[in-house]
């Protein structure tokens, strides 16, 4: 009974709004834009969080990534002819870091090389990583075929290679995979496995396995290829000596990541004369995302707030006009026996219908904004259930808040005066 009554009230409200379509629509606009902004704001925020979490998943949430960089001084002198730059992390650094912190669970050293590789007539430059078996536990990736490097020194001295999907596609093409022998540099390597690889950039931190074609045991890499690399540049050959290009450290508790990172930073600071490394913490990406979310929330939140306020006042204004216009109707209803609260309810329902309709249209508009943002800025956006329900709830609340005063004015109409009203 009560429900059908509410249903009839809502229907009556819709009918009254349809009597003045343009007026109702214009009245709703403020709420439309307000709700649209809220939807956009929430979707950008959710998107940023999701993106950050995704990046952290790719990078490993407990991981610290320490990369070798050419220090500023080195960069300046390296233009000299036949100069050899020596920089970056050393085997010694890796050893010391791994030994010194009790919160470190495992570490993996990374040695990066570009090597011409060959399978029969096919010659390709492969990006090769020399590392230890720990790598595959630090950066867990699906094994597509075969196996990864084995621990406890079993693969240490054997020339074996684990290819990534990229690498496998390049060098193996349609050849049989596992057990295949390929040539890397001037040596033969046996392909023992293929792993899936993640692509893309994660914030300003390089994903560890991005653009890697093959993994080989680090001992083998060191033994076969040494630590000196020759880069061919326009100004002649440029030689660099780098022991380790990267070091990945996994901490056993995400809460300790920052503290350990700071400790590593300090330790390296003591042994390195030049700042030729950089310590990055994937977890910090979450902070970046939060910061971006805050910026968006301030901008869109104020747009939303102002639109909703103006929209609410607009609705109130129109409803006040409507009450004046319908004084006679109110008088008739009161004379017939409608109580004050029934009049309040009728007008309140009408306002809520108006604002909620605005809210629903706003959802549509707001659903488009994230699409545009994604299209133009390649920012991830995500519309969640709460991202839809919250704006709807806000628009209904606007209706109640700004409808209450006009509704109370309507209820105060004196039927005797109203019926005399011509």
């Amino acid at each position: 009974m009560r429900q059908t009554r509410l249903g009839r009230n809502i229907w009556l409200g819709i009918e009254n709004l349809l009597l003045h379509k343009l007026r109702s629509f214009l009245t709703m606009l403020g709420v439309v834009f307000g709700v649209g902004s809220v939807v956009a704001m929430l979707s950008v925020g959710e998107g940023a969080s999701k993106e950050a979490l995704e990046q952290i998943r790719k990078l490993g949430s407990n991981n610290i990534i320490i990369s070798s960089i050419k220090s500023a001084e080195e960069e300046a002198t390296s233009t000299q002819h036949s100069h050899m730059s020596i920089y970056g992390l050393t085997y010694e650094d890796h050893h010391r870091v791994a030994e010194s912190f009790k919160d470190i669970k495992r570490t993996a050293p990374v040695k990066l090389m570009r090597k011409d590789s060959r399978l029969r007539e096919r010659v390709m430059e492969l990006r090769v990583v020399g590392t230890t078996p720990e790598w595959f536990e630090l950066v867990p990736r699906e094994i597509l075929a075969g196996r990864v490097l084995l621990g406890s020194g079993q693969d240490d001295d054997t020339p074996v290679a684990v290819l990534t999907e990229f690498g496998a596609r390049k060098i193996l093409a349609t050849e049989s995979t596992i057990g295949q022998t390929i040539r890397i540099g001037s040596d033969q390597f046996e392909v023992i496995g293929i792993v899936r690889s993640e692509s893309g950039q994660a914030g300003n931190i390089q994903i560890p396995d991005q653009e890697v074609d093959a993994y080989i045991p680090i001992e083998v890499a060191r033994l076969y290829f040494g630590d000196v690399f020759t880069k061919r540049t326009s100004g002649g050959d440029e030689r660099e000596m780098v022991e380790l290009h990267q070091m990945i450290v996994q901490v056993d508790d995400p809460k300790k990541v920052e503290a350990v990172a700071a400790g590593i930073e300090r330790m390296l600071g003591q042994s390195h004369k030049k700042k030729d490394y950089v310590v990055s913490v994937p977890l910090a990406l979450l902070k970046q995302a939060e910061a971006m979310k805050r910026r968006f929330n301030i901008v869109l939140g104020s747009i939303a707030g102002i639109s909703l306020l103006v929209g609410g006042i607009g609705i109130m204004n129109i409803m006040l006009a409507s009450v004046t216009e319908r004084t006679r109707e109110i008088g008739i209803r009161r004379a017939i026996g409608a109580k004050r609260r029934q009049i309040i309810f009728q007008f309140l329902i009408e306002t809520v219908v108006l604002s909620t309709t605005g809210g629903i249209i706003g959802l549509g508009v707001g659903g488009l904004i994230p699409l545009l943002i994604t299209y133009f800025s390649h920012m991830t956006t995500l519309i969640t259930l709460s991202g839809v329900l919250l704006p709807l709830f806000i628009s209904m609340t606007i209706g109640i808040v700004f409808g209450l005063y006009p509704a109370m004015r309507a209820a105060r109409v004196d039927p005797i005066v109203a019926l005399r009203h011509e």
Partner: protein
Amino acid sequence: MGKEALCDDHQGIIRLDNAQKIYQMGTEQVRALAGVTISFQKGSFWAIMGPSGSGKSTMMNILGCLDRLTSGSYYLEGEDVSRLDDDALSERRLRHLGFIFQSFNLIPQLTVQRNIELPLYYLGWDAIRSAERAAELAEQVGLGERLHHRPTELSGGQMQRVAVARALANDPQIIFADEPTGNLDTATGEQILQLLVELNEQGKTIIMVTHEPNIAAHAKSRLHMIDGVIDRIDAG
């Protein structure tokens, strides 16, 4: 039901006891009703007459539970309603009274059916029963074909018939008619008056305010007012 049992014919369905209504107009006090004592019997048909300012409109508002007395008492169907609050008065209007106005007072955006259903809506009737009742009443006033028209598509006489149907929807014992023919031509007005006479014959108590003697002639009794008091009574 208990309250109705209290109402015996000697007491009257409507009874005013030294009823006074005083309006404050700036510094001046206007005595719109200056001590009226009268009783209307169940099934009677009264015309309240008098020049403007005589207090007949005030009398109508008081009897119709639209306004409250300054002092004195008003018994409606045996119950003293003169001290009731706004909600309680609304409830009395809804359950016991029907109104017909000079300017019809239909809600323009609602169809004939929805206008007739209005009291039923506030009584909490469901849609199906309300629609049946509205159709029945429209038939009774001769507008069975116009249920889905809007008031603006009707003639004055038809609009007043809709108003009569609406006044009957809650099956009231008392119907108030405030200058019901004031906006109608003589012939149409005559038809509406005939409708009221029929309703009275069916047992409804009818109280009509008018200033025209030939309209008042249709009522069984006439009450003349002047300066807020009863001038004379022609009981039929």
